[in-house]
């Protein structure tokens, strides 16, 4: 039997879309040219954050999505290492203090819990003494993204959907001006709709489908220390992180993000660089990450680094996800462009896409994420 919808890409976004579509009663097939959850989903830190977003549509999506993760933890019934660990954002210069406090005030105004803390060392005893301002975000969470995506896909299968790894998609078939199937290296799969959830590669897939969108890869690298006793209790990052995320600069940007994992190692990020799909790990980047992490947590100075890994974020020129139908080709849908926030934004993205596809009332305004907006179309 043919699927109603083929989801191309078995990362966390494809998995969340497939799961929501399946729950809505559609017959779904998920395809991935590699192993599920093996690319961008496996290359991050598993962040579910509200702290790094100012008021606006992405924060609305993040707030809705976080609540969905909380319920999915129960619905999926599998341990995905969810931790409501909270975030701590710190300014370490006089100049950075007021902008951080202003940012937090704007977030509080739209309902985000953003508590200014005077005694930040009660929360993070090993933090540098040169903190000029600190804000605690109890709603920030973390999960293990490969476990989470795998659990979503397992649930799709359990509900009768299909997940196929190692199937490369080369394009689409159309009939009467709309999607009729997906071309793969293992034959054509007839279907009524296709969801482009190819992450950083969704620009390529959209081009192959004849409806290009401006999604580019943005490189990031994470350093992993040896397992340590508990020295970092929250997700801790420098207030300049928000600026690095929002920047469109292609050149290297780094901003310190430090957090522990349940297994003991500390993850040290973050870097952003536009360098195509080049997979090299530059020593220059590692050096900058290490220097900034030690500035936040001096105790890390003599801690050995076990390894580093890199990945690619799906970057949209206006830093907003692309969720919805492609007006140029009926039956083609996109769910991409989440940059470094895809883990956190996945459940609400899957719900929103499903609501739009089935004609249900969307749980939040889809307009800001629409495909035919200038930044996504005209940047081509």
């Amino acid at each position, binding site marked *: 039997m043919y699927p109603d919808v083929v989801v191309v890409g078995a990362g966390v976004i494809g998995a969340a879309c497939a799961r929501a579509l399946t729950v809505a009663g559609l017959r779904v097939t998920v395809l991935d040219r590699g192993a599920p959850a093996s690319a961008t989903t496996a290359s991050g830190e598993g962040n579910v954050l509200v702290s790094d977003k100012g008021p606006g549509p992405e924060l609305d999506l993040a707030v809705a999505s976080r609540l969905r993760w909380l319920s999915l933890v129960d619905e999926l019934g599998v341990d995905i290492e969810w931790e409501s660990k909270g975030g701590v954002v710190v300014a370490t210069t006089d100049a950075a203090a007021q902008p951080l406090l202003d940012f937090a005030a704007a977030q509080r105004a739209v309902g985000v819990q953003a508590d200014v803390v005077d005694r930040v060392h009660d929360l993070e005893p090993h933090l540098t003494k040169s903190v000029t301002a600190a804000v605690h975000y109890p709603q920030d969470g973390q999960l293990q993204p490969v476990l989470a995506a795998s659990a979503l896909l397992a649930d799709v299968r359990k509900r009768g959907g299909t997940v196929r790894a190692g199937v490369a998609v080369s394009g689409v078939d159309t009939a009467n001006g709309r999607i009729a199937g997906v071309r793969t290296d293992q034959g054509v799969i007839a279907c009524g709709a296709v969801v482009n959830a190819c992450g950083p590669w969704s620009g390529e897939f959209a081009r192959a489908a004849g409806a290009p969108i401006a999604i580019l890869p943005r490189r990031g690298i994470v350093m992993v220390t*040896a397992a*340590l*006793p508990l*020295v970092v209790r929250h997700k801790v990052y420098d207030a300049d992180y928000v600026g690095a995320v929002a920047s469109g600069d292609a050149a290297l940007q780094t901003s310190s993000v430090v957090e522990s994992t349940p297994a003991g190692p500390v993850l040290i990020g973050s870097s952003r660089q536009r360098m195509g799909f080049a997979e090299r790990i530059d020593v220059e980047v590692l050096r900058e990450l290490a220097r900034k992490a030690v500035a936040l947590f001096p105790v890390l*100075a*003599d*801690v*050995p680094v076990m390894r580093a890994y890199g990945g690619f974020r799906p970057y949209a020129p206006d830093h907003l996800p692309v969720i919805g139908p492609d007006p140029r080709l009926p039956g083609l849908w996109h769910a991409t462009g989440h940059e470094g926030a895809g883990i956190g934004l996945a459940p609400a993205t899957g719900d929103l896409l499903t609501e739009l596809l089935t004609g249900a009332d969307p749980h939040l305004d889809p307009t800001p994420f629409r495909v035919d907006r200038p930044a996504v179309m005209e940047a081509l």
Partner: protein
Amino acid sequence: MKITLDGEPTPVQPGQTVAAALLAAGRVSWRDTRDGGKPRGLFCGIGVCFDCLVVVNGVPDVRACQRVVADGDDVRAQRGAELPEARP
């Protein structure tokens, strides 16, 4: 050439790894796990598995199979996850 193993002066050959010195001294375990305190020693022997971690001169998480001994090294067993000793 001499190092100390858990405080015990021990003769070693130049060029030996810390793991080789430990094995030559009759030791098969010099670390215990973070969960459950189970004994660990040399496993892969080629620097990949991070099982043979040991504390050398106050620095934990040194791979014994990759570290070549230096005269006077202070080598001691590692207990779970440790932080580096404070610098003087």
